[in-house]
């Protein structure tokens, strides 16, 4: 699993790229929290999802109005 961590300047640059300009005094703290979050969610890379779709895939049209819903 990747252990590459964002440095404070990298975090600031990525945030700016997303349209969020971070004050200089926040760069280190934001980088630390972003790295922590990344460490938590990166575990999902262990899974080989094959053809599994995301849960957000939706059903077009009206759901049937029945007692099973």
């Amino acid at each position: 699993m990747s252990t590459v961590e964002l440095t404070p300047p990298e975090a600031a640059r990525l945030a700016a790229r997303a349209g969020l300009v971070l004050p200089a005094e926040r760069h280190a703290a934001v980088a630390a929290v972003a790295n922590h979050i990344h460490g938590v969610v990166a575990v999902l890379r262990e899974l080989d999802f094959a053809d599994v779709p995301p849960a957000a895939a939706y059903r077009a049209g009206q759901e049937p109005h029945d007692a099973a819903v």
Partner: protein
Amino acid sequence: MQPYELPLAAAADAIRARRLSPVELVDSVLDRIEKVEPHLGAYVTVTAEQARRAASEAEHEAAHGRYRGPLHGIPMGLKDLIDVAGMATTASSRVRADHRATTDSTVAARLSEAGAVLIGKTHTHEFAFGLTTPQTRNAWDRGRVAGGSSGGSAVAVASGTATFALGTDTGGSIRVPAALNGVVGLKPTYGLVPRHGVISLSWSLDHVGPIARTVEDAALVLTALAGHDPRDPASLSVPATDYRPGAGTDLTGLRIGLPRTYYFDHVHPRVEAAVRHAIGQLEALGARLVEVDIPMTRYIQATQWGLMVPEAGAYHEGNLRTVPEQYQEDVRILLEASELMSAGDYVRAQRARTLMRAEWARLLDQVDVIAAPSVPMPAVGADEATVTWPDGAVEGVSDAYVRLCAPANITGVPALTVPVGHDSAGMPIGMQLLGRPPRRAHAPAGRPRLRADAAGSGNRHSGLSERPGRRVLAGSAIRGGGVPAKGSAAAGSDQRASRTGRPTRWSEAATSAAPSPQGSAAGTWPRSSHRRISPQSSTTPKGARVRRR
């Protein structure tokens, strides 16, 4: 007993019989607010005059034979994420200080139509993005956290400053504060209660539900709330359903899943003892305990974070760029960091959710309900940031409080917390019951249904289910807490609540002996009577391989 102490059902009966007027009840609750609210901080806004007017109208209606139902004249608090026309929905944040809602949210409108009387808006951890609600103090001990994010709602119900309240639950935000304050909290099935007009934390994880003093009370509120609203894209189409439990307590044939994994890991021993004792009471009522393995446990936190953090960041994208300094620091930094997550992280979490939902559906084919602790430990001190477990593991307080609640948010299954005891310091302990979503609520032929039909045959208490077209939901056998006794924080004292006079935690129908942590030790649990099922790995879902790098 003062009117503010009455559970909802008892107050409703008294109002219907004209033994209690809505004016008396609302005045009693407002008097209680004057006495304890300065110590507790449960409310953002108290709408006393508006409440008195509404109570007077409710009284007038009752006097002229117009009775709206069991919520007629009942005082309620609404978490301040929920729009009420003409009022600010502050989300307990400076960001929203100047907000005014122009229309009612769906839930506020439905409760108003049902006759409930708004007492005020209750505090949330800012924008529901936290588990402690620092503005509010625990109803049992002012030095401890209220829990969150619906901390104000739970403390209001526990302290007698609302007969019921609404909360929202994205990672346990109804169940955590309800458990920490000794009351009942229900996170309904995803989509059962419409969220139109409710500030979102994470669209795919958010739920609205009741906090009340008994399971029956929660069911009465759910009955008024549930039903389709096309303005919420997740809203389910369900027929009108009466969710009140019946009177019987025979659980013969009910299969209760007892987790072998996850739910009892890193759990305070007094919490484990109280929950196992409570499960033993359910077994004594006829339920069959079936050991189960919880699927994909390694990926629960990653999936929860992978969904919640980017969705919260998206919701706050605009305000984070214009008024970032108006957020509290703990929320601001999470929102800022959310901007650095990738689309891949989010889609992986959604795909993991697909797998997890399928695994949980398989699990809930094998048992009718799963019983587990609601939270790993009772309310911690307000200044505690971490908890250290006996094996030396250190866990953030918020991470610990989310841990056992998150699976029901990810999968959307209904989850109910009920009080089942206290720790050695007298702090409440909650047990969580997780059931099937309505689509899967049909009991196999030959098995007792999760809830008897109107004829009253079969089992009438079975845990938790929302079965459209029927009166559902079990657990009137499990009665909730109530108003902390004198001497508690709610009574304005520094003392912890004495056991004398504490509300009943277990119904008279379930057992005459209330479960207590002293009454059972984890080591005496009769494991030999359990049958293990679900042999597949607790961490590897079907349809996917684990790929370690």
